């Protein structure tokens, strides 16, 4: 072999692979975008149909409009001495106007398509019962008002759980069977209790037995004027709910990641890398983390969209102004526009996440990117 070293060793073809991959990737991206658009379309349309009970809600609305109009006319002193027939005619006119305004006279099928268009343009309309804290009836405003509080609380807790558990799990998978590993496994069932359950105990201990932290809310009342003092107050209010969520999720999360890494560190190619005498850091990075990046990224992004829905009970326990309780109330009021608005935004976020995931899969895993080329 040495004697051949001088002979023309062709420039390895590794570079040529790059172009082929890029072309594949573009094609794949367009294909996925189209598929996702159709998915969102179908999902949002189904929500519209379901939230309107296939048009049945219209009947309820008519009844409601009629009773409101009757009430308004009856309560108005200007119409007090009007004859009953004229008054009824007035009510009918009012109802007809309102029905026309809401286009209830058109078939539901036609309107549902319009609703779909509006929803896709994020024109979410006005709420029927609910309003934002600032008094707006705009569904978009109602939802967006709650978004920062939800993202702040659940984002902090979930990012913390995710990164802590992945790193601790990697560490434990290196020390399989150690005392630490066994104690984490033993603690995994603690996650059977939900976050709010731990929340109640934390509030009891840290807000009442030893009153160190506020029991609920998002910021002190009245809110501090100074920006830093405001931030500090929010952080103090976040400590307990974040701790509650962290406690309830961390052990099961570590446990499942640890098992995941253990399974993947006994792959033949990992064993081969060990035989090759590669340093263990490199093996961990290139042979364990790199091939498993797709599922790791998936779970990370799904965790991120999970933030959107908030958590109803935990928000109640800590009196946190989040989205979970908002949507819960909207369902209670049968406030169709708010429900649809929530779902539309969720559908968009989900589609965006899945799209990002699809692209990431293709970048991370050649088997996805080059699929179909050889078959």
């Amino acid at each position: 072999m040495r004697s051949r070293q001088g002979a023309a060793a062709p420039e390895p073809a590794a570079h040529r692979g790059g172009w082929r991959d890029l072309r594949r990737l573009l094609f794949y991206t367009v294909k996925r975008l189209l598929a996702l658009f159709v998915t969102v379309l179908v999902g949002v349309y189904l929500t519209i149909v379901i939230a309107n009970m296939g048009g049945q809600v219209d009947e309820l609305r008519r009844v409601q409009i009629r009773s409101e109009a009757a009430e308004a006319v009856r309560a108005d002193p200007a119409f007090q001495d009007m004859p009953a027939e004229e008054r009824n005619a007035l009510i009918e006119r009012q109802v007809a106007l309102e029905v026309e305004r809401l286009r209830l006279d058109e078939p539901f099928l036609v309107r549902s398509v319009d609703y779909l268009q509006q929803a896709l343009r994020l024109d979410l309309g006005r709420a029927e019962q609910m309003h934002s804290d600032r008094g707006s009836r705009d569904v978009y405003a109602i939802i967006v008002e709650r978004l920062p509080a939800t993202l702040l609380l659940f984002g902090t807790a979930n990012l913390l759980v995710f990164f802590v558990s992945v790193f601790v799990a990697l560490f434990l998978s290196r020390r399989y069977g150690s005392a630490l590993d066994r104690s984490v496994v033993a603690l995994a069932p603690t996650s059977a209790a939900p976050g709010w359950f731990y929340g109640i105990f934390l509030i009891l201990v840290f807000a009442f037995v030893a009153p160190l932290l506020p029991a609920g809310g998002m910021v002190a009342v009245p809110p501090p004027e100074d920006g830093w003092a405001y931030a500090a107050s929010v952080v103090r209010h976040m400590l307990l709910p974040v701790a509650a969520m962290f406690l309830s999720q961390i052990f099961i999360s570590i446990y499942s990641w640890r098992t995941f890494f253990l399974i993947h560190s006994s792959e033949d190619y990992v064993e081969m890398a060990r035989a090759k005498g590669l340093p263990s850091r490199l093996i961990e990075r290139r042979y364990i983390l790199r091939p498993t990046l797709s599922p790791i990224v998936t779970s990370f992004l799904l965790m991120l969209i999970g933030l959107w829905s908030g958590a109803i009970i935990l928000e109640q326990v800590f009196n946190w102004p989040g989205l979970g309780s908002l949507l819960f109330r909207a369902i209670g009021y049968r406030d169709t526009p708010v429900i649809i608005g929530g779902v539309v935004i969720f559908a968009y976020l989900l589609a965006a996440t899945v799209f990002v995931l699809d692209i990431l899969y293709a970048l991370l895993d050649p088997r996805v990117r080059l699929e179909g080329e050889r078959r």
Partner: protein
Amino acid sequence: MRDRTLLRVEALELHYQTRQGAVHAVDGVSFDLHRQEALVVLGESGCGKSSLAKALMRLLPRNVHHTAGRVSLDGVDVTALPDERFRREVQWSRMALVMQASMNALNPVVRVGEQVAEPLRVLRGWPRGKALARAAEVFELVGVATDFLARYPFELSGGMRQRAVLAMALVAEPALVILDEPTSALDVLTQASIMNALKRVKRELGTSFILITHDVATSSELGDRVALMYAGQFVEVADAERFFTAPAHPYSQMLMASVPRLRQRARPEAIPGEPPSLAAPPGGCRYAERCPYRFARCAQDPPAFRLGERHRARCWLHADDAQAGGSA
């Protein structure tokens, strides 16, 4: 004169810890291997062949109970080296392993060329271009088109993957390559062409091989020497010629009789019984239970009797022909 011995293994032991107690997977194996020589380690499934390869490469699983013995490579006792030095100086650069099930031995998300060139880049610090050029050379040597360097493992056929792994083993020009069942998952034609590639490598590079297999036919292709393993021990070590024509140990004889041959009337004879459990190996000769020549002395553990230059058998039948000696 330069010593012809490349590898000397003395009383190598590897025991695993299991619920049933310690499993004696490798139990006192001794042999030596010359330069440019191929040793075939033959044995039934579960006799400790793969464990032998792992013990030599120091690829010990988590449940190791105990290891012992000496492995010297080029006269240097590598068992005495600390792990880190062994990894950097011996593993892969001097002694490489093609593992069983090498179908999945390639990282699915890294280009084949990068993986083949990796040991050079990581262990020797070669720049990427130089390492890839060298990978292209070994690809040619084992009969894979260099186009495949830029491919991913899933784009390669089984035989191609096996060759790529072989190329990976050869890339750092190790003095010794251990092949653990390299062809058992492949069809006969692919097997034959890989065996031919191995012969070419042996001829051109002068690499020594330890070929672990249960397939007597494969072993006769490449082997200069044959070691027959039974229940964690080498029961006979001999030149291939001698082993296939005049095996000394009863197990060797019965094994040869069990191989079906073309153009032969005699029916292949199966060996009755089963190998003993390695968790509780019997005292005395481990083959005694299945041996038709069993006699009183078989209750004691036979040493490896020297039957000629580099020919040893662990059987009391040969106690009179020879005297017990060290490694063969």
